[in-house]
């Protein structure tokens, strides 16, 4: 009886905590990150966005403008160039503005947080309407609108309504050092703490459904890979084997984690079934094999120094002979794959930059960054933007750059160093 009562009390307290956590996550909090656009899109598609007022900072139009600008594909036309434009739903001869913009966006907040959007082409006056429902996060309707506009114009799925996970190190130089795992909107707003620890937290990775994070934590004074539900807070240990348990990467179907374990002596790539915990060894060599990332469901790309220096290799998800992918440069590592594009770190004359290349293309690569110590790049799910950490003013800062290199944005935390960013998949809720 007493035991049952205790169980009930425990369950009740867990429920209350998770509800509190859910409410905290869904509600809007004041942004802690500062934004600055360092390079605007050049020769992008000119688009005019009429003012769409809202109670949130910048209004819906401000969020849509910032999203489209960040993709590196659009040039935002100054509102002064079309003064006194007819409001949403009003008559508009868009063809008259052909020389100013290719598209005109008008919108209206329905008063409950929902959004109505008109996208008008100036070449033929064609109009497309969108209805976005309200969300507990008042910024999300504008992100969803930006996704719709992006998809209509570029024929690529938008990835503005997504999230970023990252680790912030507070009081790094003191004995009171704390590691905090955060999740925020993809533009850095609405930051929410998922967990904190005095011991390091590294390499968060998103589940395909976007409701769980797997990460490495040293909270038991040794490395372990954990899975935590970001809404309920429920957490479990997936691997706490002897040696290092590191660099988890979730498979696209959500059934497995690719990890780097060293319990046999040197780090090798394994897959762990998330439900059963079944372990399968993928690589077997005397080298250090680490930082796995999935390339579809059937192959894994990882970093290995089996050739003498760190390079990227691809291996079947069921194991076998690894095929080398990178040949130019002495150092290539930390790959992330999305939409047939691969971003990675490449060493060049003592500095480390972010590069991008086609997964199935030739050996050529495009450089996206020019910092001295750029690390841990992660791709948006549509492959159009890359988030990575860079050393700026003595502090690790989060940077987001478009895949064509035309737009760059820095997200600096007032709390401390930002590390290990991970871009979420498309959101379902």
């Amino acid at each position, binding site marked *: 009886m007493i035991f049952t009562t205790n169980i009930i009390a425990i369950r009740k307290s867990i429920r209350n905590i998770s509800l509190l956590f859910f409410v905290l996550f869904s509600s809007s909090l004041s942004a802690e990150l500062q934004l600055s656009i360092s390079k605007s899109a050049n*020769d*992008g*598609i*000119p688009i005019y966005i009429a003012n769409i007022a809202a109670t949130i900072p910048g209004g819906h139009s401000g969020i849509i403008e910032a999203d489209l600008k960040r993709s590196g*594909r659009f040039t935002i036309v100054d509102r002064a160039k079309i003064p006194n434009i007819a409001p949403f739903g009003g008559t508009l001869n868009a063809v008259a503005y*052909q020389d100013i913009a*290719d598209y005109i966006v008008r919108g209206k907040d329905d008063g409950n947080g929902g959004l109505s959007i008109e996208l008008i*082409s100036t*070449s*033929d006056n*064609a109009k497309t309407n969108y209805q976005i429902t309200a969300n507990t996060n008042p910024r999300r309707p504008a992100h969803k609108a930006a996704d719709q506009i992006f998809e209509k*114009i*570029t*024929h690529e799925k938008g990835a503005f309504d997504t999230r970023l996970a990252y680790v912030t190190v507070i009081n790094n130089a003191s004995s009171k050092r704390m590691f905090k795992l955060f999740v925020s909107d993809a533009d850095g707003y609405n930051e929410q703490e998922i967990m904190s620890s005095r011991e390091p937290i590294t390499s968060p990775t998103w589940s395909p459904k976007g409701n769980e994070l797997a990460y490495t934590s040293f909270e038991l004074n040794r490395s372990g890979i954990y899975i935590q539900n970001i809404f309920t807070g429920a957490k479990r240990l997936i691997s706490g084997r002897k040696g290092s348990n590191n660099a988890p990467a979730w498979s696209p179907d959500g059934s497995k984690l690719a990890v780097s374990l060293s319990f046999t002596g040197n780090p090798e790539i394994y897959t762990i079934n998330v439900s059963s915990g079944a372990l399968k060894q993928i690589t077997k060599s005397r080298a250090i094999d680490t930082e796995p990332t999935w390339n579809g469901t059937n192959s894994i790309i990882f970093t290995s120094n089996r050739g003498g220096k760190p390079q990227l290799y691809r291996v079947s998800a069921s194991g076998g002979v690894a095929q080398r992918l990178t040949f130019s440069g002495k150092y290539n590592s930390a790959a992330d794959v999305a939409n047939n*594009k691969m971003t990675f770190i490449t060493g060049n004359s003592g500095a480390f930059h972010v590069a*991008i*290349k*086609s997964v*199935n*293309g*030739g*050996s*050529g*690569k*495009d450089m996206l960054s020019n910092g001295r110590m750029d690390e841990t790049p992660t791709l948006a799910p549509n492959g159009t933007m890359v988030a990575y950490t860079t050393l700026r003013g003595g502090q690790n800062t989060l940077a987001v750059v478009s*895949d*064509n290199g035309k737009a760059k944005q820095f997200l600096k935390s007032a709390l401390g160093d930002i590390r290990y960013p991970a871009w979420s998949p498309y959101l379902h809720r």
Partner: protein
Amino acid sequence: MIKLLSKHPGALIGAVIFHLLIIALFILSFDWSEKPKGIEAGIPVAIVLPEANTLEVPSSTVKAEPKKEPSEKPDDPGEKAEQLKKEQQKLAALATIAATEKALKEKRKAEKKLAQKKAEKLKLEKQQKLKAQKLAKAKEAKQKAKQEAEKKAEKERLIQKQREEEKAQEEADKKAELDKVEAENAAKAEEEAKAEKKRLEKKAAKKRAEEKAQEEAEAKLEEEKAEKRRKERAEARKEERRKEKLEEEKKAKKEAKRKAKKEAAKKLAKEKAEKEAEERKAKERAEKRAAKEKVERAERAAKAKAEEEAKEKAEKAAAIKAAKAKKEMAKKLADKKIRDESRRKWEEAQAKKKADAAAEAKKKAAASAANKASSDKARNGALNSWGSKVERHVRRHWEQPASSSGSVAKVRITVSNSGYIVGGVKVLSCKGPPAFCASVKEAFTNAEPLPRTEGKYRFKNSDRTFTMTMKSN
């Protein structure tokens, strides 16, 4: 690891000392000495053997009481007193025993304590001794290690010295070699210098000989020149004499001439005088003749005058006649002129009319051509402008894939009036990765609808067909 240690001698020494310390401690942890007796064994509790006098102290526990035989007699007061006395004695003895025992116990205790203290002291001493031994051993080991290190250092110094000596020897050998080579070179150079000197001397001698020859030649030349000059002088003198002679002859001639001239002048004067005289005569004659002629002239003049007057008269009449004729002629001419003039004017007017008409026609044709040209120009301009718009529009929608730098593609498309591509995108050529070629096609399809042409120009499909070259960054 050995290689690493050999690079850091300090670390090597420290490692050796540490290992030796461990060995020393290990060795010292064993009890190599004979088992010590009694206290030296470090047994905290001293085993105290009982002293001789204590053996005789009756033990209250051992004492066997004599068997008390039951007295057959009834209690006698004397016996009672004796018994009492005995008991008292017994008690006193017991008390004494007890006191003695107590004293013994205390003594034993004290001795025990003393022994304990002694044992502790010994233990401490032993420990100190061990410590000292350990220190000594460590010191020894350190000393040994130091010595070994010094030996090693010495060895290394020797090796280094040897190496340096070898190096010095090598250098010396090299230097000797170099010196040898230098000497050889010097000798060679000397020989060459000698040869050169010889050659120079030869050359100089040759030069001297040449110079000498030249001098001789010059001297010879000089002599010849002097000879020549002498000859020339002689000839000059000869010439001078000849000239002088000529001069004298000339003078003589001149003199003769002058004389002849003088005579001629005399003759001339004489002739002149004669002439004058003749002239006077002739003049007179001429005057006479002139007078005569004058008269005759006057007569003639009068005659001529009369003739002239008659002639004038005739001429006048003729002139009047001529004037009349002329007038008539002029009139005829004037009439003709007027007629010609009017005809000419009429012809001119006709010609002008014709020319005007031609000019008008030409002007019209030119205007029409200009209109057509400007219309064509405007049309072409509109087409070019539309082409630029299409190019700009497609470029904005074209996302080049990563790692496609240097790629080029050529495509042909036809755009309908509504801005949509007719018949698909025809890729004429593509030099680049497959992703780049695919992105070129996607650029056009993503960009639809393309900008439209201006409605006032009726562009045909052929006008709205163009070829575009797409180059990556």
